[in-house]
């Protein structure tokens, strides 16, 4: 039997101050970079025009830029996309976006005219996206609502399944991952697109999943533990689930790396977000959720240890697991 991290007894929680320092430092860096420049939203959220163009031979970007400027499209971003013959042109200046209010395709048409007049048949527009500012605003609020609601629903679910203290700790840990992933995106200069938001929401699910698995073990260990502090029990739960965490995360990371390296340009930002999310999800389960739970328990202690045991006992009688155990 091949085993890794078997029967470990690391004192994970002892390092929580270091971890907290690390987290705060990371978030502060994020805050600083945010003050320096706001988050880079994709045109789906702000409105704007994006065109992906394939040239027959590498174009002169400077000439292209001045050509676009002459056509009244100043400040357009021209970014190489994959090979040296493929470029993405992005017009996201507020003036250009405003022009798209009455008809989304106006700027795209102008860019197309510039391209056709300069390169003729030596280029091919492979992708066009043009979004009017209103649609962008709508999408922004929709995405925000979706995130808030998914938070609330998971909080309710966790509160019902576990207990509000654990639910709260899990949700705060997840919120941490959310913010940390945003910081990561900021530092990586990833653009916040719909795809990235989907990745972000998956990170939320993933990180929640990770915390839930440790807390599930904690729930079980709490029932068994007699004269053990919560600190020790939590440490034990983390250690017991460690092989699973390591294996699952390396396996997930494997598929994410495959996406990252081979999935193509379109999917790459998503893969980056996922890769970081897997890392931070594991980190936060150990170093945010666990210390936080201890703090919450200290602040709002359960009535007595007897009451705790009886309360968990009544709880377990409702879980499907005890039924399953009875059945076997």
């Amino acid at each position: 039997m091949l085993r890794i991290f078997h029967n470990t007894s690391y004192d994970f929680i002892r390092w929580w101050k270091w971890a907290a320092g690390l987290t705060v430092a990371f978030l502060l860096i994020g805050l600083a970079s945010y003050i320096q420049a706001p988050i880079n939203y994709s045109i789906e959220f702000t409105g704007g025009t994006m065109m992906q163009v394939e040239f027959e031979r590498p174009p002169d970007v400077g000439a292209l830029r001045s050509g676009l400027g002459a056509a009244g499209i100043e400040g357009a971003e021209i970014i190489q996309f994959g090979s040296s013959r493929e470029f993405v042109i992005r017009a996201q200046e507020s003036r250009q976006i405003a022009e798209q209010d009455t008809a989304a395709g106006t700027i795209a048409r102008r860019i197309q005219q510039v391209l056709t007049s300069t390169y003729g048949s030596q280029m091919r527009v492979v992708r066009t996206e043009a979004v009017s500012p209103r649609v962008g605003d709508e999408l922004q609020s929709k995405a925000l609502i979706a995130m808030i609601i998914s938070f609330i629903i998971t909080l309710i679910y966790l509160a019902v399944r576990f207990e509000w203290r654990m639910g709260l700790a899990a949700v705060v840990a997840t919120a941490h991952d959310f913010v940390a992933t945003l910081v990561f995106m900021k530092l990586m200069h990833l653009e916040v697109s719909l795809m990235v938001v989907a990745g972000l929401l998956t990170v939320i699910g993933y990180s929640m999943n990770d915390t839930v698995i440790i807390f599930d073990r904690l729930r079980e260990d709490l029932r068994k533990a007699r004269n053990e502090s919560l600190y020790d029990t939590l440490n034990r739960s983390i250690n017991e689930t460690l092989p699973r965490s390591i294996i699952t995360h390396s396996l997930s990371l494997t598929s994410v790396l495959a996406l990252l390296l081979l999935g193509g340009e379109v999917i790459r930002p998503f893969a980056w977000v996922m890769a970081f999310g897997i890392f931070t999800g594991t980190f936060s389960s150990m170093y945010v959720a666990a210390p936080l739970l201890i703090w919450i328990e200290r602040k709002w202690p359960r009535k007595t240890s007897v009451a705790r045991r009886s309360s968990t006992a009544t709880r377990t009688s409702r879980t499907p697991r005890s039924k399953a155990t009875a059945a076997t």
Partner: protein
Amino acid sequence: MNLKYRIVIVIGLILASAAALFPRNVTERVKGPNGFVFDTVRRVPLKRGLDLKGGMHLALEVDESKAVVADKSEALDRALKVVRTRIDQFGVSEPLVQKEGEERIIVELPGIDDPQRAQEVVQKSAFLQFQITDETQALEKALPKLDAAVKTIARSGAVAPRQDTTTRRASGVSDLLTADTSRVAARADSARPDSAKADSAKTDTAVTPSAGDFSNLIQQGQFPGEYFVANDDVQTLQSYLSMPAVQAAIPPGKVIRFGIDSMQIGNALYRPIYVLDARPIITGQFLTDAKPNTSPTEGTIVEFQFNNEGGRRFRNETSKHIQDYMAIVLDDRVMGRPPVIQSAIGTRGQITMGGRDLQAASDLALVLRAGSLPTPLKIVEIRNIGPTLGQDSIDQGTRAGTIAVVLLVVLIIAYYRFSGALAVAGLLLYVLFTLGILAGFGAVLTLPGLAGFVLSLGVAVDANVLIFERIREELDRGKTVRTAIDEGFSHAMTAIVDSNVTAALTAAVLYQFGTGPVQGFAVTLLAGIIASMVSSIFVVRTFYMVWLSRQATSPQTLSI
């Protein structure tokens, strides 16, 4: 549960998924050499989204920049019908035209090769009017007033036109000439460049105002109501005509419309403008048929036909206007030169297309047949993905997916040996189930959907890992193989259920609040979560039970 029933259920699930995925006959509209035909093809019933197949996605809204539409939802419903008829005739295989929410129409055209043309077909108002040119010299009489209006604006300095720029932008610039705003099409193609140039033109005039500007721009044409303006002055004139003061000075009951083609007079190009009776003698609502044609004398034309009632009215009206000139006005632009009415015209007529090609004529015939849009529409979102890009995405996605799966399989079997092999068999079924669910519910496979699929693969693997680690722990505690397996599954159950339910809830919220691509992601994630729970909790356990039942004696060791 009895092993026999378990096996039956597993086989049943496999058969159901296979049936859902079995290639079946699907009727598709396929673009053939002579337009479009219904064709029956045999294929796996998994639809690919536009981002994988290539094509155009359009979102349209009621354009209220010109006039407020009272019952938007109702207007949108009628517009939906018109757009659908037009798209159906446009000849794309499997187009999608549907209402999204209360305010938006979504048009999806897979594999389109000319996005510009498609946009025009969707958006053209196609409001056809027949108007008699003015015979009363109304414009000449109004010229002093028009000049005065222009002068006032010019005198109020550079500030006024600038302010006007903003109001004009807000009100849309589709057609600068329109007095009857409710019928104006959002002709985006002509509108934008116009506005940009008009801005500069206006700034110029603001700097150099001169008296009698309006009357200097135009000159009398060859018949009553026809005037010419030099091509260089068109922008200036359009900007004047868009000013409220000038509009107020236009003679009552008359409208001014530009022709679509320029004419060469001497060495200069001129654009005709026409002063027309505002009341049309007939509109396109009585039109029953329209088809493109070429005529040796007039180039490309569109021949149209009115129904009986329309024919009667047309005959009536034209008999009152013998020897008058009749302008054929499409979306507030005069098509060709107004012909003189020789005698009463009945149910048939034609529109000359000027220099435009046969394709333009057939597009015009198409939109005329489908009817005019009850309200102007504006395009609020365009996504156009070339077919090669879609194929690239599929190729890269498949490659990444295959490599990910191979790596996972190798790692799982290397680490868990025999149990790992069972898990891999379970994962294979998981893939089958997921695809089966997607096909069964007619879900559309998109690029984010593929990502969701890869992700739920991770969730499925996680469930197996949880179970196996638990079984190992139970074995460590000295339990027998049989008990360890039982306990391993039952103890891992809560963790799997809890984590999957939280993920499923997130996916459900995403589906509810997301749009297109995000919904695709949510659907595959949801399908994947359900399939992964079934495969890891039920199927793999059944495999174990089968294995246990085939052992002569109770096994002492488990390869895990």
